[in-house]
């Protein structure tokens, strides 16, 4: 498995994501001006404050050459994982539905919390990760840290997401740190190969620094094929 981790000016967690990916295969950084994803099997759009997050989080990064390449990669079925700012970028780019708004508390919040890989949709499990999570590991201990992570989409769109099994992760009951609609922490596209989540699985890959549950999130995206 060869991973590519995007790097924008203002990215913060790209080295952490690179490290996490390197535990599961080969990994390299992809500079934001680079369109070449040759040889890359999965892309991670990492956390941070791309372009300072001025205007709106992720609003400028989506126009980078690298993101154009990622859009093509995703359309061809390549697996893409957006973490925190990366999730915001994917939403801004229209690769994922919805938007991420200012936390209800209006404060940046950094906290270890439990994530629940979301229930399958009405048609049954869409990808292997959901089935495995439901079977083996109902809760993942993963930190979240963001100021703009309140997931929002119109109610009918949320209904449709749930119906189609596109809610990838929810915050455990009572642990929603930002006021997200329906406790949604992460979503996937309809095809299932593009996933975004606010919490940081790359900061949960080492027992010394917290937990290793984040590795499950990377493994799941690696297997996510339409």
């Amino acid at each position, binding site marked *: 498995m060869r991973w590519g981790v995007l790097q924008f000016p203002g990215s913060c967690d790209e080295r952490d994501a690179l490290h996490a990916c390197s535990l599961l295969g080969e990994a390299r950084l992809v500079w934001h001006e680079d369109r070449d994803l040759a040889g890359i099997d999965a892309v991670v759009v990492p956390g941070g404050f791309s372009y300072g997050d001025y*205007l709106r989080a992720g609003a400028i990064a989506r126009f980078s050459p690298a993101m154009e390449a990622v859009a093509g990669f995703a359309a061809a079925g390549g697996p893409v994982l957006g973490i925190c700012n990366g999730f915001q970028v994917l939403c801004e780019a229209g690769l994922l539905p919805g*938007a991420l708004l*200012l936390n209800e508390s209006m404060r940046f919040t950094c906290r270890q919390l439990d994530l629940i890989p979301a229930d399958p949709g009405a048609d049954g499990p869409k990808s292997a990760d959901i089935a495995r999570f439901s079977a083996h590991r109902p809760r993942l201990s993963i930190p979240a840290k963001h100021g703009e992570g309140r997931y*929002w989409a119109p109610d009918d769109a949320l209904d449709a997401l749930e119906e189609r099994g596109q809610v990838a992760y929810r915050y455990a009951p009572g642990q929603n740190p930002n006021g997200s609609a329906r406790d949604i922490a992460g979503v996937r596209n309809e095809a299932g190969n593009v996933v975004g989540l606010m919490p940081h699985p790359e900061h949960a890959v080492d027992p010394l620094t917290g937990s290793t549950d984040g590795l499950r999130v990377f493994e799941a995206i690696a297997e996510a094929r339409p």
Partner: protein
Amino acid sequence: MAAVRARVLIRPKEGILDPQGKAVEGALPALGFEGIGHVRVGRMVELEVEDPERLGELCEKLLANPLIEDYEIERLDGGG
């Protein structure tokens, strides 16, 4: 072609929770401002543009996120 000065006002769409607006609204009674409601906090972008016809597209693509934000374009040079 002479540049036109314009102002774009961007605010959260109706129905979207606006914690900043809520916080401002909540602070008002303690300061003696009664009877104020429905506060929405947005942002303003001032710019000079050579082709004002493209302002709408600029707002749709970058300045605002049409999913969650409304915008208004105001020409400042009396151009209407």
